[in-house]
C-alpha cells in the first residue's frame, strides 16, 4: 500500500526546504478591477494555511488561480519548484497535481463512490488507492454506494478522499463545510483536521469563518479587497492584529482611546503594559475575554456597574458601564453570580495591543 505518511516537519526543515507553493506578486483583474491584488504567499510541506476573508475578498479566486482554473494577469505561481502560472503561460489544471475539495463536494453524480475516488488515479493503482483513501476518511466499505445515497457529511468525506487519492502535492479546500449545518460542521472540521494531519498533507484552506481558520490552521492569511493584510500564526493574529479591521474580523474587539509612552499606555482602565512600544494618541484594543470583573467588596473599589447580561451556556457576556459612561463587553465563564446592577472592579489580564488611531474607521 502506498503511504504518504511522513514525520511532521520541524522548524529547521521547513526553513531549509523550498516551499511546496510559492506565489509571487500575483494579480488577477476582472473588467480591470483587481480581484487579487499583488499577493505573495509561501506554503511549506505539511503546513496548513487558511485564507480568511469576507465574501468577495478574492480568496476563492486565489484558490482557483493556484488550481489553474484562472490565468493571472501578473505574477507567478510555482508548485513543487516548477513554474505553473504566469501571464500568457499556464499549465492546465490537469498537469498540476493539486487536489481540490469544493464547497458542495461536487461528486460526479453518475459514478459510484469508488469510481469518484479513483477518477484521478492511474488504473494500475486504482484499487489500492481507492481503498486507502476511503479508509483514511473513515468510509471504507462504501465504495459501491452512489453519491445520492450519502449524507452531506459523507459526501464531503468522499470529496476529500477523491482529492487525496492521486497523492497531490497540495490540497485546496474551498469553504468545504459552508453548506453543512452547524453541529455537523464542527464535528467534520475536527475529523478533517485529523485526516489531513495523519497524511501530513500540505493544505490551503479558504474560509470566511474566523473560528474555523483559527482552530484548524498553522497559519492564517487575512485577505481584504484582494490584498493579504496579515499572514500570521492564529495566536499572533488574534492578539496582535495589524489593524482595527483585522482585529474586528477575527474576533470581538472593542477600542478605548489611550495615550502611549514606551511600552505603557494610559486609558480609562488605568496604566497598562503593551506588546509594542508606541508614543502619543493610540487605540487600545480590548477583547471581551481579557476583562476581569471583581465584585465590589471591602478591599475592592468598584469602577463600573453591570448593566446587562447575556447567558450563552458555555460562557456569558456582561455589559458594563464605566464612570465616564463608556460601555464595554466582558466575556466570562458561565459560573459566577454577577448580575445586572452589581458594582464591579474591571481589570485586564496581561498586556494590551495599541494601534495607531485611525479616524476613518470608527
Amino acid at each position, binding site marked *: 500500500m502506498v503511504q504518504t505518511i511522513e514525520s511532521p516537519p520541524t522548524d529547521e526543515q521547513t526553513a531549509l526546504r523550498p516551499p511546496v507553493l510559492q506565489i509571487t506578486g500575483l494579480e488577477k483583474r*476582472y*473588467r480591470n*478591477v483587481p*480581484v487579487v491584488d499583488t499577493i505573495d504567499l509561501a506554503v511549506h510541506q505539511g503546513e496548513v494555511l487558511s485564507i480568511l476573508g*469576507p*465574501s*468577495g*475578498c*478574492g480568496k*476563492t*479566486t486565489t484558490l*482557483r488561480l493556484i*488550481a*489553474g*482554473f*484562472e*490565468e493571472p494577469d501578473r505574477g507567478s505561481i510555482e508548485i513543487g519548484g516548477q513554474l505553473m502560472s504566469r501571464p500568457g503561460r499556464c499549465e*492546465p*489544471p*490537469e*498537469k*498540476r*497535481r*493539486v*487536489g*481540490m475539495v*469544493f*464547497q*458542495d463536494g*461536487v461528486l*460526479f*453524480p*453518475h459514478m459510484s463512490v469508488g469510481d469518484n475516488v479513483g*477518477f*484521478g488515479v492511474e488504473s494500475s493503482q486504482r484499487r489500492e488507492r481507492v481503498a486507502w483513501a476511503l479508509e483514511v476518511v473513515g468510509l471504507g466499505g462504501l465504495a459501491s454506494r452512489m453519491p445520492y445515497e450519502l449524507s452531506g457529511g459523507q459526501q464531503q468525506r468522499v470529496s476529500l478522499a*477523491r*482529492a487525496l487519492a*492521486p497523492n497531490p502535492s497540495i490540497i485546496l479546500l474551498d469553504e468545504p463545510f459552508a453548506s453543512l449545518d452547524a453541529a455537523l460542521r464542527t464535528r467534520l472540521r475536527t475529523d478533517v483536521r485529523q485526516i489531513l494531519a495523519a497524511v501530513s498533507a500540505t493544505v490551503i484552506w479558504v474560509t470566511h469563518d*474566523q473560528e474555523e481558520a483559527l482552530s484548524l490552521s498553522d497559519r492564517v492569511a487575512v485577505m*481584504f*479587497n*484582494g490584498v493579504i493584510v496579515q499572514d500570521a500564526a492564529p495566536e499572533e493574529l488574534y492578539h496582535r492584529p495589524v489593524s*482595527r*479591521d*483585522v482585529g*474586528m*474580523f477575527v*474576533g*470581538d474587539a*472593542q477600542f478605548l482611546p489611550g495615550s502611549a509612552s514606551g511600552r505603557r499606555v494610559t486609558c480609562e482602565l488605568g496604566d497598562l503594559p503593551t506588546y509594542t512600544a508606541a508614543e502619543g494618541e493610540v487605540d487600545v484594543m480590548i477583547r*471581551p475575554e481579557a476583562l476581569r470583573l471583581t465584585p465590589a467588596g471591602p478591599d475592592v473599589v468598584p469602577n463600573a456597574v453591570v448593566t*446587562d447580561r*447575556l447567558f*450563552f451556556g458555555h460562557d456569558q*457576556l456582561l*455589559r458594563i458601564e464605566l464612570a465616564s459612561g463608556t*460601555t*464595554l*463587553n466582558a466575556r466570562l465563564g458561565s459560573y459566577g453570580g454577577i448580575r445586572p446592577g452589581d458594582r464591579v472592579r474591571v481589570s485586564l489580564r496581561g498586556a494590551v495591543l495599541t494601534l495607531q488611531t485611525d479616524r476613518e*474607521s470608527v
Partner: protein
Amino acid sequence: MSLAAGTRKHALDGPRWPARAAGVRQPPLVLVALALAVAALVLLPLIYLIIRASEAGEKFRTLLLRDRTLEILINTILLSVSVAITAAVIAVPAAWLVARTDMPGGRWLSPLFALPLVIPSYIGALTFIVILGPRGELSRWLEKSAGIEAFPSIYGFWGSWLALSLFTAPYVFLTVSAALQGIDPVHEEAARSLGKGSIESFMRTTLRQLRPAIFSGMLLSALYAVSDFGVVSLMRYDSLTRAIFVQYQASFDRSYAALLGLVLVAFALLLVGAESMLRDKAVYYRIGSGVARQRQPRQLGWKKAPALLFAGVVLLLSLALPLIVLVRWLVRALRRGESFDQLLTVTGNTLVLGIAAALITTAAALPVALLAGRYRSRIGAVIERTTYIGYGLPGIVIGLSFVFLGANYLIQLYQTVPLLLLAYMVRFIPQAVGSTKSSLMQVNPRMEDASRGLGRSWTATMARITMPIAMPGVLAGAALVFLTVVKELPMTILLRPTGMDTLATEVWTASSDLRYGEASGPALMLILVSAIPSAVIFARARQTAMRGDA
C-alpha cells in the same frame, strides 16, 4: 457598543465582483469554428431568400403593396390572433382545473389535455372536414333528420380556426401548468381569507402572476398558426403559407413566392422575439425552485358538472373524434379490401428520416449549446441567437429556399435525402439547442473543474463527466426533433426524393385526392409513431419535476 457585539463583524464587505462562475476561460477554437459553421448553414436559406426576392428589383415595391398581399397578410393575422385567444380560453381553465381543484380524474386529465400534441394538426383538420364538411356526416345527418341544408361551410377561416385552436391549446396548457406549479397559492389563499370567492381570488392573484406564461403560450400558438401549412391548405384558407405554395406551383416567376416568404418570416420572427422576451419574464414570476407545497385542492362542489362538461367537449373534439373517425375509416377501408401494402415501406422511410434528422440536428446543436452554455463569450451568444431563427422560418419558407438553391446551385443534392435532412436541421435545431443547453447548464461547472484538477484533459472531461450527466436532456431534445420531423409536411413535400413517400406525405396526397380511407392507415400509424417519443419526453419531464433536479 452594543451587547450584540457577540456576533461576528464583517468589518469590510468587499465590492461585488462580476460572477466568476462558468466561463472566464476562452472557448476552444475548434468549438467556435464548428458552431460558426452550423450558424452559417442555418442562415443559408434566409439569405438566399433575400437575394431571390431582391431580384424582383423594380417590381419589388409594386408586388409588396399589391392588394392581394395585404389581403393574405390580414388573413394570416386574423387567423393567428383568433387561434391564440381561443387556445388560451381552452387551456387556462383546463390547467387551473387540473392543478388547483378537486376535479374528478385530475391525475389522468393532465396527460390527456397534452395528448392532442401527438395528432398532427392536418390529420385533425381532415377528420373535421369529414364530419363537419359540406357533404360530411354531420351535415348529412342534420339534413336527413331536421331538414337543415344551409349548414355553414367548414372550409376557409372557421375550419382552420377550429383545428388550429384545438391542436395548439396543449402548448398553452403545458406552459401554464408549468407556471402554476411554481406559483405559491398563498396569495390566492390570502385573497380568499379576505372574503373573495374562489374564481375572483384566482383572477386577482394567480392569474396576474400567470400572465407572462399565458402570453408566452399564446405566442407559441400564434406562431404555430402562422407557420402551419397543412391545415390551411386542407381548409383552403388563403393565409401566407398556402399562398406561397400556390404561387410556387402556379407560376414560373418565383420572386413573388420568395417575397411572400420574407413577409411570413418577418411576421414569425416578430412572434419569436416577443415570446423569448416574455419567457424570461415568466421565469422571474416563479418563486423558488422547489415543488410548490402540497395544499388542499379547491372544492368545486356543484361546479363539477360544468367543469366536467367543458373537459369532455375539449377532449371529445381534440382527441376522441379524430381517433374514432380514423379507426372507422380504417375498418371500412379494410372491408373494402384496401391492403395498405405500402404502409410498411412508408413507415420505414419515416422512421429512417426521423432518426437521421434527430441525430444530425442534435450533433449540430452540440457545439452551439456547449459554446453558449459553458463559456460567456459574445460570439457564443450571437451564434445561439442565430440558430433560434429556425423557429421563425416556417417549413414552407425553408423548403422553398432549398428548392431554389438546389435547382440552381446544388443540382447533385436537389431532391436527395441529405438536402432534406439539412432543411430539417435548420428548422428544428432550436429545439435541440434549447434542451441540450439547459441540460448542460445543470451540470455544475465545478464538476468539470474537479475532473480537470484530478488530471483529466478538457476532452476527457467532456466525454466522461459533462456529456454523461447531460445525456438524458440531450436525448429528450433528440426525441423532440424526431417527433416534429415525422409529422413535418411542407419541407418533406418540396424536398423529398421522387418516389420516396413518408407517412405525412401519404396522408397529404390521399386526402388531397379525397381518398380518406387510404389516408386512415398512414394517419393512425403516424399517431402511433409520434406517441412513443412523446411518452418518453412526458415521463422524463414528470420525473424531473418530481425530483427537482437534472
